[in-house]
């Protein structure tokens, strides 16, 4: 099995960017005067927490996974938009999206297994028995759709940029290229949000609030 060095480098650079920004937020975080970056991270965390109706002991895991995914995918989507960046968007490579989707699905099922126990986990997915094949198929399709949606959008975006460069002479290609870059910025946010949102929804379905008998079913969020 081969390793695509440019994809690994792009992925590592993305990781370093996210970690740098995250640590910057951690170090410079302030109660009285939060900066724009801190507010953006706080907004992401609050939105994730509001959307998650996960059982309380596992809520932070769902929230941290969704927040990390959002910023990581956003950085990956915007990586080629950085001025003079020679790196491609890591999310335009199937390996990255497959990796992220696999992590999400493994985390969701591991959390569900831990929360429900082996018997409860199997009962959740296999009952009623006549619907079990459909539910199994659904669970198998989830990571594939999650990965292919992000990959398809980013790959097509890269293709459009390549086609604009190939079909139009440089001066004429400038305007559509800039317009597409603006669209790419917007699309990068949307795709990151969708991936993070679906992650939370998978957690919500696997480990819903009220699963723990000690926890009230109506309690949905901690604010």
């Amino acid at each position, binding site marked *: *099995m*081969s*390793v*695509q060095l440019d*994809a*690994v480098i792009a*992925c*590592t650079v993305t*990781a370093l960017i*996210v*970690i740098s920004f*995250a*640590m910057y*937020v*951690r170090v410079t*975080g*302030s*109660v*009285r005067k*939060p900066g724009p970056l*801190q507010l953006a*991270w*706080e907004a992401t*965390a*609050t939105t994730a927490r509001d959307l998650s109706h996960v059982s309380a002991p596992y809520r*932070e*895991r769902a*929230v*941290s*996974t969704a*927040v*990390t995914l959002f*910023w*990581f995918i956003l950085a990956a989507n915007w990586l080629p938009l950085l001025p003079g960046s020679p790196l*491609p968007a*890591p999310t*335009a*490579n*199937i*390996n*990255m999206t*497959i*990796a*992220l989707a*696999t*992590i999400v699905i493994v985390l969701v099922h591991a959390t569900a297994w831990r929360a429900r126990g082996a018997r409860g986990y199997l009962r959740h997915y296999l009952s009623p028995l006549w619907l079990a094949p459909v539910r199994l198929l659904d669970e198998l399709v989830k990571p594939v759709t999650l990965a292919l949606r992000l990959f398809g959008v980013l*790959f097509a975006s*890269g*293709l459009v*940029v*390549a086609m604009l*460069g190939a079909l139009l002479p440089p001066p004429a290609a400038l305007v559509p290229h800039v317009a597409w870059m603006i669209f790419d910025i917007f699309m990068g946010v949307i795709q990151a949000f969708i991936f993070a949102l679906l992650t939370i929804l998978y957690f919500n379905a696997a480990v819903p609030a009220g699963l723990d008998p000690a926890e009230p079913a109506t309690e949905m969020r901690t604010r």
Partner: protein
Amino acid sequence: MIELPDSNFLLPDATALVEVVVFLVVLFVVSKFVLPRLHMLMNQRRHQIDDALHAAAEAEAEARARHDDAARTLRAARRQARLIIDHAYERHDHLVAEGRRKGREEYEWSTRNIIRTETRSHEVAGDGR
């Protein structure tokens, strides 16, 4: 710009495994070091805002009480002023009536004096003739 690899680009390879590790490192850093701190900062800010709202509510209640006090004091002052003015009017009327009475008495006394003096003068003049 995307360069299509020679192999089927829709099939994952060992790159995915490396990327899984890289993402797990990011997930570890964010969930262990960043989000707890952010959570703490947001909670502190929420408490500060709650405290400030509580203090504002207390200040508003105090301001309302002081406003009521001021209105009560103003009403009492107006009532007292009215009493003083009424008393002043009464005193004024009394003084005017007293002045008139004294004036009339002085007038009558002067008139009587003049008549008496005039009568005496007439009598003296009659005796001389």
